[in-house]
């Protein structure tokens, strides 16, 4: 694809005001699909979870999943939305081979939730409130695989294959109002907003919320308007931007690309664009045209939904503490610096650290182990740190150090044992015999041997060059296989050297 001209970002912002909008699709983790009893599950054989309804066979009819509606209402409430007293499903009609019925059962003019807002905090500490226009229920489409053609993409493919296991999986689509005033922070606002949505659905437990698995998909709308003007510019919609970092990059890219076109006196075409992770660029997709006539009408196979106010209040009572509030509370309680806390949050270790502290570790120790050693090991193994050991193990480990039974060095070996499944830290200490040697007799023997092996060093110490003891400490620790308290060893050396 032809390379786009890009205007320098700062220049672009100086000349134009970016206006944003986001559509985020959240896949719910209900047991069954939105409109049929087929399992909502992945990683199984193609077309194993289908029935006349989700396969769009003649005669198939939909039935609404109560749990999916419940999750949608809870999500709506968590977004500060009103919950409709009456709403309906509607058919969004277009032909596409992954859409079994060739219409998507969605909601149109009567969404289940509307008029909410999400407040996000940027790195700079700046707070931005994003207004939510609506959150509505709909169903996912099946999965297409494009065969032949180099890219595995739709272009140039010889034919395509369809698996309908994902067809009919419940989605909530969250649509923001236009976001003005983000200014130079626009890309970060995008990332932070989608991150906030992810944290919210995760805290509610209504979705697996793994962006890399497509549980959360973001379409980013970007338009620019010249400084001092009020009319909205023509927008582009960049589809399926599926990581927080990509959201930030895609918004930034579109701002620079559109600015370059406008600067050159060109005009923006209203179109959907595709994000390419590899090149970090977007490419033109389907132009929006008046041919997009979805012919929405109320789904005649489903009856209206009228969530009782009692039900809504029951669900409101089940809402967890909002993630942002929780973070503020914990940071305060643990006394971490902004950066220390960011480490924990970025590592997605909030729960692990909280549990470790609850199990008796000091906040400092908990943070040190999780963001330090454990994260290092996790990275080398390409797994999540919180899958390596249980918070209670980390708490035990720091306890053993605190009461001098382990040195940091020994503790790292114990940790390996725990990760290897050899048992709790205490058990590993037993099995591997990694206790610190506090019996002076054994130490003195080793010290005398080391001193006699290095008479020159002994002489230095006796001349008062105390720091020379370091060489001997090393030898002794080696002899003790590290199972000694270095401080105690030092004392004894000076003692034996007659200092």
């Amino acid at each position, binding site marked *: 694809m032809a390379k786009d001209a890009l205007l320098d970002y700062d220049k672009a912002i100086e000349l134009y005001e970016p206006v944003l909008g986001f559509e985020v699709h959240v896949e719910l983790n209900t047991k069954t699909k939105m409109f049929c009893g087929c399992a909502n599950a992945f990683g199984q054989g193609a077309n194993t979870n289908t*029935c*006349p309804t989700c*396969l*769009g*066979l*003649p*005669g*198939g*009819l*939909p*039935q*609404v999943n109560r749990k999916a509606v419940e999750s949608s209402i809870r999500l709506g409430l968590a977004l500060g939305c009103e919950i409709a007293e009456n709403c309906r499903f509607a*058919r969004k*009609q277009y*032909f596409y*081979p992954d859409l*079994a*019925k*060739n*219409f998507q059962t969605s909601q149109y003019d009567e969404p289940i939730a509307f008029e909410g807002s999400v407040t996000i905090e940027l790195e700079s500490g700046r707070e931005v409130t994003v207004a939510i226009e609506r959150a509505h229920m709909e169903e996912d489409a099946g999965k297409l695989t494009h065969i032949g053609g180099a890219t595995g993409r739709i272009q140039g493919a010889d034919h*395509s294959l*369809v698996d*309908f296991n994902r067809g009919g999986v419940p989605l909530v689509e969250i649509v923001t109002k236009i976001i003005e005033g983000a200014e130079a922070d626009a890309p970060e606002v995008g990332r932070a907003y989608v991150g906030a949505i992810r944290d919210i659905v995760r805290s509610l437990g209504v979705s697996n919320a793994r962006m890399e698995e497509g549980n959360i998909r973001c379409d980013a709308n970007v338009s620019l308007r010249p400084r001092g003007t009020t009319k909205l510019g023509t927008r582009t919609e960049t589809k399926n931007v599926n990581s927080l970092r990509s959201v930030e990059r895609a918004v930034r890219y579109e701002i620079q690309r559109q600015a370059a076109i406008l600067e050159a006196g060109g005009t923006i075409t209203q179109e959907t664009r595709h994000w390419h992770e590899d090149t970090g660029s977007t490419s033109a997709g389907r132009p929006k045209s*008046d041919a997009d*006539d979805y*012919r*929405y*009408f109320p789904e*005649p*196979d*489903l*009856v209206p939904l009228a969530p009782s106010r009692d039900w809504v209040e029951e669900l409101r009572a089940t809402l967890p503490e909002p993630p942002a509030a929780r973070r503020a509370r914990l940071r305060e309680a643990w006394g971490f610096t902004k950066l220390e806390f960011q480490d924990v949050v970025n590592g997605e270790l909030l729960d692990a650290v909280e549990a470790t502290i609850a199990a008796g570790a000091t906040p400092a120790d908990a943070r040190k182990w999780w963001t330090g050693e454990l994260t290092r090991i996790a990275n080398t193994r390409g797994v999540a740190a919180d899958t390596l050991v249980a918070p209670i193990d980390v708490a035990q480990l720091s306890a053993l150090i605190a009461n001098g039974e382990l040195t940091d060095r020994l503790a790292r070996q114990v940790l390996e044992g725990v990760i290897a499944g050899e048992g709790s830290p205490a058990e590993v200490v037993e099995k591997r015999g990694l206790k610190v040697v506090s019996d002076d007799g054994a130490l003195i023997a080793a010290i005398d041997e080391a001193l006699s092996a290095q008479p020159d060093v002994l002489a230095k110490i006796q001349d008062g060059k105390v720091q020379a003891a370091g060489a001997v400490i090393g030898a002794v620790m080696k002899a003790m296989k590290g199972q000694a308290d270095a401080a105690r060893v030092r004392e004894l050396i000076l003692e034996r050297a007659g200092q």
Partner: protein
Amino acid sequence: MTELIRLTAAELADKLAAGEVSSVEATQAHLDRIAAVDGDVRSFLHVSADALATASAIDARRAAGEKLGPLAGVPIAIKDVLATKDMPSTAGSKILEGWLPPYDATVVAKLRDADLVPLGKTNMDEFAMGSSTEHSAYGPTHNPWDLTRTPGGSGGGSSAAVSAFEAPLALGSDTGGSIRQPAAVTGSVGVKPTYGGVSRYGAIALASSLDQVGPVSRTVLDAGLLHDVIAGHDPLDSTSLGDVWPSMAAAARAGASGEALRGLKVGVVRELSGQDSSAQNGGFQAGVKQRFDETVAALTAAGVEVVEVTAPSFEYAVAAYYLILPAEASSNLARMDSVRFGLRVRPEGGPATIERVMSTTRDAGFGAEVKRRIILGTYALSAGYYDAYYGSAQKVRTLIQRDFAAAFASVDVLISPAAPTTAFPLGSLVDDPLAMYLNDVTTIPANLAGIPGMAIPMGLAPEDGLPVGLQLLAPAHEDARLYTVGAAIETLLTDAWGHSLLSQAPALKEAVK
């Protein structure tokens, strides 16, 4: 055993229960009849190969002393709009030619559970779009009373099968009269239950908010027996009603006593009775009006209080219907796309992209009437027209419901001719969509309002000697009232005639075997 085929379902069921005949004998008799006359009538698109095996299994269980349902062992014909696991289900369309569903419609499953014996699938207008069965992709069905005429539609196959004694019972579906109008023009009985009374799951949808599955038979009691088998809540159909339904068969038996007519208040719907034969009301045939007036007289003589009621908004019913139906149908038929089932036709020249394969398949697989209604429905729903068309039509539904509510406030049931004319000649209306549409003027309002309706024979038109049907309408949920009153009127008329109407039907020449 040709006598077996002339029995009503109730009579046959009694003989089966008494062990006087076996289900195998009864089934064989009907298969023989089909073999003999269906070459002329063409009621069936498919005749089951398993019917006899099913029948003998039922006989065996009965012989073993198992307690079976009231219709156990009775053969039945099934409209091809219903999904059947073991028989092709095409809805009369080429686009579904040979499609074997991997599942049974709920009503079909209920038939099997009640041990009825499916004989086969009956012909219909493609996707139930039509009033003559001439729009079937597999050729028209012929009216047993006069093979040069249509058996009505869309369920002409089921009404012809029952009136040609190929089956004592049949299932139909009624979206704007597809059970009642065919019953009327073939001298049989047909019932459209209250919307939601019978499950639509597995019924290939025409218009979701109008479709209802219902019984077709030769007597009101038989219809009631079948209604009792298929009615009831189905969790797979979200529009299915939770009502606990009284026995329709019991309601029919109660009516047959005749007592039911005394003190009954019946309303004649002015707009549905040819009182003014303006265009939108359809030209009511003289003989139809005559038999209707005689029936009204007979009812009055029997102590029924008959009053005229008017329903002004019915004038807009056909128009509203021909907006709502195409709109919903255009959407329901979108799934016929050559991807997961059914026909696939590749385009002649140029690249065979999926888009072109879909369009080519849908052009080749759909008949003219289906395309006409899909385009009309697409228009009615398209941007800028929704409010004026679909939206307005939905408002007309409200007005029609108000008219019915007002009428039922003063009468127990409403009556009208079930169709404005007797069976019309094959080919006479097929190229005149509007005239064909107007043939449903009497039946459409009930579908728009969701109320139950029944058609029973009320004589032969003097000018052509063809059956004329009477339509009865009751308030929603009051299906049982139709059976009581319908059976009472049936008794009143047949007693007057001294025989059942269908015994008048010309003997179809039996092909020599």
